[in-house]
């Protein structure tokens, strides 16, 4: 019970920070959105040229560095990696591709829900469905293999990248892009955003906050531990939105959203399934990256890559709807994800059968 109270409190604090970020200038229902912010970073670096979503969001750097410092203080920083690295990169890219159809990571889905955006209510069952499919694979032994220890520098790549991006956004050299209109131009003051990132990074590192884990653990174990944090976040943001007048109930005219229900459902399904197969939602990947997990850093770079693909090919969802290319992409990525799940699970099942057989052979020779 003590753990649950801590998580609910953590959720409420994160919720308050989220509402504050919108008041300070971030786009509506986007006080925090890992997918949107990583997409803005991809744009800020010029990896895509969608002029309205380009900014090196300091919240992201804060998250990684907050988790990094906390992990060091609690002696939890460990340089690990080597578990299905390139598959994780792909899963990161797929996660982002799904998120940019819906227009938001799971976190923003919760924020949109708390802002009265009913399109998010359609996406939520999609997210749960994707996670449920992922759990089917987990139950049958899906694993990307054990991570091992790595040279310390490998684990420091994530935090160092964050420091580099921070220097770039502060120095603002001419080759870095800053949106002058659209969501990318709406931003909380740099140091407020950084501080918000650091605080949430610290909280998320301590509590292991994860939007996918919350749903997954309920399906797998009937364990509501992580879910209590999400509930706290939702309630805090809902109250915050009602107080600040940011609550608009309905499907139409929602900020940075569209009403294509089928694609909202299917795209969040992609995010859910990819998150299970990668072991964490986009937020959790950033936190793990700060803790020295090089595989999570690869996943984060995959997320950024996915954002560049979506905008360069014109596949991303937008307020008018989802382009045809994006719709085809959703179907193809669903097939690829299920394929990855099957292939990896099949091998894991075969290996565990072999292991069990070897164990029985040893037993029978001992008794015989």
């Amino acid at each position, binding site marked *: 019970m003590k*753990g649950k109270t801590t998580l609910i409190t953590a959720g409420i604090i994160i919720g308050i920070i989220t509402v504050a970020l919108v008041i300070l200038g971030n786009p509506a229902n986007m006080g925090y959105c890992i997918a949107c912010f990583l997409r803005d970073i991809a744009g800020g670096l010029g990896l895509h040229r969608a002029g309205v979503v380009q900014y090196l969001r300091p919240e992201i750097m804060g998250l990684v560095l907050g988790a990094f410092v906390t992990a060091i203080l*609690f002696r*939890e920083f*460990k340089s*690990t990696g080597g*578990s299905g690295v390139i598959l994780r990169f792909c899963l990161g890219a797929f996660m982002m591709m799904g998120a940019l159809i819906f227009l938001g990571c799971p976190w923003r889905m919760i924020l949109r829900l708390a802002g009265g955006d009913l399109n998010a209510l359609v996406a939520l069952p999609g997210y749960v469905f994707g996670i449920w499919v992922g759990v089917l694979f*987990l*139950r049958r032994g899906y*694993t*990307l*293999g*054990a*991570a*091992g*220890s790595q040279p310390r520098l490998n684990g420091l790549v994530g935090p160092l990248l964050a420091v580099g991006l921070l220097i770039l956004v502060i120095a603002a050299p001419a080759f870095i892009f800053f949106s002058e209109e659209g969501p990318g131009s709406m931003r909380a003051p740099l140091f407020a955003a950084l501080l918000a990132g650091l605080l949430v990074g610290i909280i998320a590192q301590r509590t*292991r906050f994860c939007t996918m*884990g919350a749903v*997954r*653990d309920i399906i*797998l*174990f009937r*364990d509501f*531990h992580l879910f209590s944090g999400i509930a706290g976040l939702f309630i805090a943001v809902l109250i915050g939105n009602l107080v600040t007048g940011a609550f608009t109930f309905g499907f139409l005219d929602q900020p940075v959203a569209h009403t294509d229900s089928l694609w909202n459902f299917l795209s969040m399904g992609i995010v859910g399934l990819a998150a299970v197969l990668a*072991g*964490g939602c986009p937020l959790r990947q950033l936190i793990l990256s700060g803790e020295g997990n090089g595989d999570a850093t690869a996943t984060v770079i995959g997320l950024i890559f996915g954002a560049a693909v979506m905008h360069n090919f014109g596949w991303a969802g937008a307020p008018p709807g989802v382009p045809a290319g994006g719709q085809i992409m959703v179907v193809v990525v669903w097939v690829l994800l299920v394929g990855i799940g099957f292939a990896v699970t099949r091998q894991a099942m075969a290996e565990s059968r072999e292991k069990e057989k070897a164990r029985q052979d040893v037993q029978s020779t001992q008794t015989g």
Partner: protein
Amino acid sequence: MSSKTIDCCGLSCPEPVIQARKAMQEPGINELKVKVNATVARDNVSRTARQMGWQVDVEEQGEEFVLTLTR
């Protein structure tokens, strides 16, 4: 009346929890040792075991944790 040891070092969550639960549900097992090397896995396996009514004893061995679960 038997015991079993499983090695979950390096596995990302929830895999250690799934493996531990599977082992705890095997008939006749009343002591289970779970080796993990991450605090998250240590906490998650401990919480699950306690929820399932097992006693948890944690021993730190260098970089690793050995959880002894008994019922």
